[in-house]
C-alpha cells in the first residue's frame, strides 16, 4: 500500500512537478494520523468508563453524584466530536439538544446526555431516567466499537480542527449547549483541546513554510487557554454565567479567527 503510494507520488512528481507536493504531504500525514488515532482511542476508553460511572449514578438515583460526573464525562466526547460525528445517528442519539425536537424537552424522542442533564438539573431527579441512561451507555459502547474499527480519513482528521471551532462558533459560544447545568466551559475546553491536538500533530509539517500562519493559530489557542484558565475551579470550570461579557467576546473572536484560519489547514497539507 505504502509502496504504491510512493510510486504514485514519484510518477506525479515527474508528470506534474509542483503538484506532487500534495502527494508528499499525504504521506507525511501517516505519522500524525496514527498519533491521532491513539488520542481518539484514549478518549474513547475514558468516555466508556466515565459514562459507565455517570449512568450508574443516574440509575442508582444518586442525583448529586450524577451531577458531579456529567461535565467531566462529556469532555472526552467533545474532544473527539468530529470523529464521533462521522456516525450521525449515534451523535444525534448521544448529544442532541431539546431544540432538535418539536416538543423540546417534553418530546419523548429527546435522548442522551442532554435529556439526562435536563432531568438532573431542571427536575432535580433521576425519575424515569434509567432507560435513557441505559440507551446512552449502549450508544457509547457502539460508538467505541465503530470508531475502533475505523480507518480515519486524513481529510476528516485535519478538517476536524476547524470543525470543532465551527461547532463552538455556531451553537456553543452562547451557552446553549449545557443550558440546564451551565457547564459549558468544560465543553469549550474539550473542544479547544481536541482542535489544538490536531493542529499540534500536523504543525511540524507546515512550520517552515507557513511560519506566520502557525504563529497566528498558536497565539489564538494561547489566548483561549489564558482566558479559560481564569475560570478554572478545582478539576473543572466555573459555570457559564460567571463568564464575563468581555471574556465571552475574547473567546468568540478567537473561535471565529481559528475557524477561518484552520479552514485552510487541509489545503496547506495538500488535502482536498
Amino acid at each position, binding site marked *: 500500500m505504502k509502496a504504491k503510494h510512493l510510486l504514485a507520488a514519484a510518477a506525479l512528481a515527474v508528470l506534474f512537478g509542483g503538484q506532487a507536493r500534495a502527494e508528499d504531504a499525504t504521506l507525511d500525514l501517516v505519522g500524525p494520523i496514527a498519533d491521532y488515532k491513539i488520542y481518539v482511542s484514549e478518549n474513547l476508553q475514558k468516555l466508556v468508563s466515565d459514562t459507565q460511572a455517570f449512568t450508574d449514578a443516574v440509575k442508582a438515583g444518586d442525583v448529586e453524584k450524577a451531577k458531579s460526573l456529567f461535565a467531566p464525562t462529556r469532555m472526552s466526547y467533545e474532544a473527539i466530536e468530529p470523529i464521533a460525528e462521522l456516525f*450521525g*445517528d449515534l451523535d*444525534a442519539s448521544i448529544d442532541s*439538544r431539546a*431544540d*432538535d*425536537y*418539536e*416538543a*423540546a424537552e417534553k418530546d419523548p*424522542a429527546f435522548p442522551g446526555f442532554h435529556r439526562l442533564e435536563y432531568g438532573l438539573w431542571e427536575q432535580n431527579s433521576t425519575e424515569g431516567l434509567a432507560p435513557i441512561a441505559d440507551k446512552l451507555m449502549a450508544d457509547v459502547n457502539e460508538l467505541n466499537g465503530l470508531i475502533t474499527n475505523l480507518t480515519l480519513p486524513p481529510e476528516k482528521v485535519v478538517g476536524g480542527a*476547524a470543525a470543532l471551532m*465551527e461547532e463552538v*462558533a*455556531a*451553537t*456553543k*459560544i*452562547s451557552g*446553549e449547549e449545557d443550558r440546564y447545568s451551565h457547564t459549558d466551559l468544560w465543553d469549550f475546553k474539550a473542544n479547544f483541546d481536541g482542535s489544538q491536538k490536531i493542529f499540534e500533530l500536523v504543525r511540524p509539517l507546515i512550520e517552515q513554510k507557513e511560519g506566520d500562519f502557525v504563529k497566528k493559530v498558536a497565539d489564538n489557542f494561547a489566548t483561549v487557554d489564558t482566558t479559560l484558565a481564569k475560570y478554572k475551579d478545582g478539576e473543572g470550570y466555573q459555570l457559564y454565567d460567571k463568564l464575563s461579557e468581555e471574556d465571552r467576546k475574547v473567546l*468568540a473572536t478567537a473561535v*471565529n479567527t481559528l*475557524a*477561518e484560519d484552520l*479552514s485552510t489547514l*487541509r*489545503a496547506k497539507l495538500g488535502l*482536498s
Partner: protein
Amino acid sequence: MSRHPAPKQPVDNTRRRLLLGAGAAAGSVLVPGAAQAEAAAARHHVTDAPTGDASFADRWPFYGEHQQGVTTPRPASGMIASFDVLAQTPGDLEALFRGLTERLVFLTQGWTPPELDPKLPPPDSGILGPVVAPDNLTATVSLGSSLFDDRDWLKPLKPKKLQRMTKFPNDALDAGICHGDLVLQFCANRPDTTIHALRDVLKSMPDKLLLRWKQEGTVPVIPPNPDGRVESARNLLGFRDGSANPDSGDSIVWVGEAHDEPAWAVGGTYQAVRIVRNFVERWDRTPLGEQERIMGRRKPSGAPFNGHTEFDEPDYTKDPDGKVTAHDAHIRLANPRTAESRKNLILRRPFNYSNGVTKSGQLEQGLLFICYQADLEAGFITVQRRLNGEPLEEYLKPIGGGYFYVPPGALSPGDYVGRTLIEAAREGKASPT
C-alpha cells in the same frame, strides 16, 4: 412619480409580461436610459425612492381553474404567512373564504382605497401610496392538516396525502414556525407589496384569522442572457437553485380526476414549505472543491460535472460508480434521473431569507423552500427521505414550515377560493348551516 405612465390595460401575455416585470427592475439599475440619467442629474437625494415602472401592467389574473402563484414565474419577493382559523362551522368558513377572496382580488388586481373622514383610521396602510398597484402580486391560499383534523365535518374531506409535517433526522423544528390551519403565499416584485398585502388581510379579518408565523424571502434579480435565456437565481450558498426544475406541467403539479383525491380537491396541489437555515459562515470556510462535490455542480456556472451550462443534464448512466458526481451529491440524491424517479419530481419555488443574528452571533439566513406537487408522498417527502444523511446536512438545519393543500382557483367574479370544499362539506352534512 413615473415618467413613463404605465399602461392601464392589463397585458395578458403572461410570459412576455413576466420578462417585462423581472427585467424592468434589473434594467433600471444596470442600463439606465437617457431619460433616467437626465433626471438623476437634475435631482438626487439618497432617500429618493428607487425608480422602476412595475405597476398596473404587472398583474396576474386572479380567477382561473388553478390558483395563481404556483406555476406563475417567481418574482423577486416572497412571503409565507401562517394563520389559525377561528371558523368552526361551514358558514363561518365560507365567510372567511369569501372575505379573503375579496381582499385578494383587490390586492392582486390593484385598487384605490376610498378617502375616509380623517378622524377615522385610514382604510389602507398606505405603504404603497394612495393607489395600490398590483406590482406582480400573487396570492395563494393553502390549507393545513389541522384545519381538517380539528373539525369533524371537514375530517372526511381531508386530501389523502395531507398530513402534519414530522421531523426528518436533521430537522430541529421550532413549533413557533411550523404548521398552521391556513397559509397565504404572497409573491411580488417588491417586499413592500407582500407586506402591504399581509397588513391588509390582518386588518380586514381580525375575527377570522389569527397570525401564527411568517417568513419573507427574496431572490436576486438578474438580467436575461443575450440569447434571452434566464439563468436560475442563486441561493445563499452561492449555487444556482432550480436548474433542474421540471416544466410546470399538469401531471407533476395539479391534482386531476385520475388522482385518488376527494372530488373537491381537483385542480389543487400540495404545497411543502420548509424554513432551512444555512450555516453560511461555515459554508464560506469550506473548500470550493468540497462545496462543488457536495452539491454536484460547478459553483460559477451551475453546470453539472459533465456539462458546460446549468441547463446541461447530468448523465449518471455513464457514471455508475459516482466518480464524476458522487452518489451522495445533493443533486444526484434529490433527482437520480431514473425512469422510476420521474414520479418524484417536484416544482420548486424557493426564496432566500435573511433574518438577523443567532444567539451565537452568526447569521440567521437560509432558504424559504417552497415546492408544489400533485402527490406529497411521492414528491417532497420521498425526495427529502432520499436526502436524509447527505453531506450537505452539515451546513443545513430545517427549523420550520409545514405541509398544506392549495385548493382549486376561483373561476370568475362571484366565485371564491375554497368553494368546492364548502359545497362538499354541505353535501356531507345532514343539516347544513
